[in-house]
């Protein structure tokens, strides 16, 4: 038997092959197909236009309105209704407003992905699902329509880059900083067409929320998928959610890697990525003092419970000054409920932030926090491309939830270590 990586093993098993090699074109069976309210209507239109009236297996399809909920326009309402009607007609899973959230986080929470499975979704951040040791990749609407029709997808097997995470994360340094550091090192296409496999001692201290952040931003380096090999922590998370049988796989000793990148996590500082690229990360200390108008805490990258807890710990009992505003958007409804029960939402509201319903929120620049010309935003999202959150003349800085909370408290880019550790102001 050829030694293979976890990614190669999952692809081979889904292609009905004993092994695959990088560069090989395969047709693979999919365990789950996801589409949301931006990409879904186009996929359904493709099915309709080609006279395909039945999906291959309704149980394997999931439709999640998350970008445009609750609908900000009549057109959005119509797009979402199209998904809803299709779901009703075919018995496909659909997450209604108020019971869903951002698809990627929702699929993890709901146990719609398990170790060793293969999931495709009509969204580039579908790679988030690699957090539980699945192969998950983003596709376009047409690919997704074809997968809904046939239960299969064509793929080119990616070579794998191993990312070795070493050491303990210092206080206020999070998975987000690991990814900003990796991006600064390898660039926006540093992993183009590759798999990123995360290994190393740091993983032991990263919960599933943090592992989701690692895999989420794999696509920012151009990767096809990000994956964390399953360990006991993964299995504990998944077994609480998944009833069906699944087969966890890990890389074989001696498997071939294209490259290895080492990140010394114990040496990292909180980073901030400057406009207009997530690969422009610099230590927050070098940018401290830069004025911001809005802070956005949310998205599939950093709208999870761990993220809200970190931010709330800094905001508790403090107030956001009048010249800055903060928008908090929990990633899913169950995170919203948990944050409510723990009193986190109260902390945000008392501090002067606005808390919105669970959705993508301000991240794609469609509603609840769209930026105007000349505005500066610190966001916990994954992309700070020009125009991403509204006006092309707005400037977006990316950082972790601790930096976001510290910055909301001052109105200027702030190192969270200065908020709790230092003299005066916030002690």
């Amino acid at each position, binding site marked *: 038997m050829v030694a293979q990586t976890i990614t190669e093993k999952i692809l081979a098993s889904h292609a009905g092959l004993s092994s695959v090699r990088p560069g090989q074109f395969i047709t693979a069976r999919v365990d789950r197909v996801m589409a949301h309210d931006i990409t879904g209507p186009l996929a359904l239109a493709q099915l309709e236009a080609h006279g395909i009236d039945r999906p291959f297996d309704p149980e394997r399809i999931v439709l999640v309105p998350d970008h445009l909920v609750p609908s900000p326009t009549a057109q959005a309402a119509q797009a979402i209704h199209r998904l809803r009607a299709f779901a009703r007609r075919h018995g496909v899973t659909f997450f209604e407003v108020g019971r869903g959230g951002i698809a990627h986080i929702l699929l993890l929470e709901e146990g719609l992905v398990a170790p060793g499975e293969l999931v495709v979704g009509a969204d*580039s951040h579908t790679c988030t699902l690699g957090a539980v040791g699945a192969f998950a990749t983003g*596709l376009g609407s047409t690919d997704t329509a074809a997968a809904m029709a046939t239960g299969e997808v064509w793929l080119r097997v990616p070579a794998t880059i191993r990312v070795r995470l070493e050491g303990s994360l210092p206080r206020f340094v999070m998975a987000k900083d690991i990814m900003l550091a990796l991006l600064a090192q390898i660039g926006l296409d540093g992993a183009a067409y590759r798999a990123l496999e995360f290994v190393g001692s740091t993983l032991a201290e990263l919960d599933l929320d943090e592992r989701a952040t690692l895999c989420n931003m794999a696509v920012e380096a151009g990767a096809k998928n990000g994956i964390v090999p399953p360990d006991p922590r993964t299995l504990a998370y998944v077994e609480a959610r998944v009833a069906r049988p699944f087969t966890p796989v890990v890389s074989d000793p001696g498997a071939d890697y294209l490259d290895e990148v080492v990140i010394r996590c114990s040496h990292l500082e909180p980073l901030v990525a400057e406009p207009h690229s997530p690969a422009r990360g610099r230590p927050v200390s070098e940018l401290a003092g830069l004025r911001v108008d809005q802070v956005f805490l949310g998205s599939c990258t950093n709208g999870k419970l761990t993220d809200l807890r970190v931010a709330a710990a800094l905001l508790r009992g403090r107030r956001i000054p009048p010249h800055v505003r903060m928008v908090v958007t929990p990633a899913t409804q169950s995170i919203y409920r948990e944050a409510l029960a723990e009193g986190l939402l109260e902390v945000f509201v008392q501090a002067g932030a606005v808390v919105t319903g669970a959705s993508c929120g301000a991240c794609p620049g469609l509603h609840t926090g769209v930026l105007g010309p000349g505005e500066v935003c610190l966001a916990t999202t994954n992309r700070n491309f020009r125009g991403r959150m509204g006006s092309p003349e707005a400037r977006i800085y990316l950082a972790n939830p601790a930096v976001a909370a510290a910055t909301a408290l001052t109105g200027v880019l702030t190192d969270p270590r200065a908020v709790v550790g230092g003299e005066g102001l916030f002690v």
Partner: protein
Amino acid sequence: MSAVEEVPVTLPTIRGRVHRVGDHVNTDLIIPGKYCLTTSRERLGPHCLEGWEPGFARRVRPGDVLVAGENFGGGSSREHAVLALQGAGFHAVIAAGFARIFFRNAINLGLPVLVCPDAAAQAADGDLVEIDVGQGRILLDGRVFRAEPYPPFLQEILAHGGLMPYVVARTRAGSSRPTS
């Protein structure tokens, strides 16, 4: 999985003028999210690349070719980016490199995309270009460049005008499987 089938396909030759953009032109620059509530090529086309340069689409004539640098089409998975390029009149894109989802979307919607760093480096705005997609041959102001030709099943998808017509054709032919 079935073996690679050698299906003889003919892909049309493309002739037009070059329009250049730089490296890392992402999908937000190709078509901003706010226009993505429509999937009509006609309505997306006029806004194509306005994030790169306002009014860009007005200069494009049907058959023209976009030439880009590294990592063209990075960012979101929105197919609207391909539809906008087609709506503007582009018949092909040549780049030093493509982001993977964009590459797939383009093939799946029938827009030929060619990886050719040399041609991408040398093409200038307004150059006449001719592309033999099947052979991966690019003729640029009299100079010949080679892009890696597509594997047979991708050529087949392009020849059908995209993935869905291809899936339908194969389903009718009794097999839903793309060749692998």
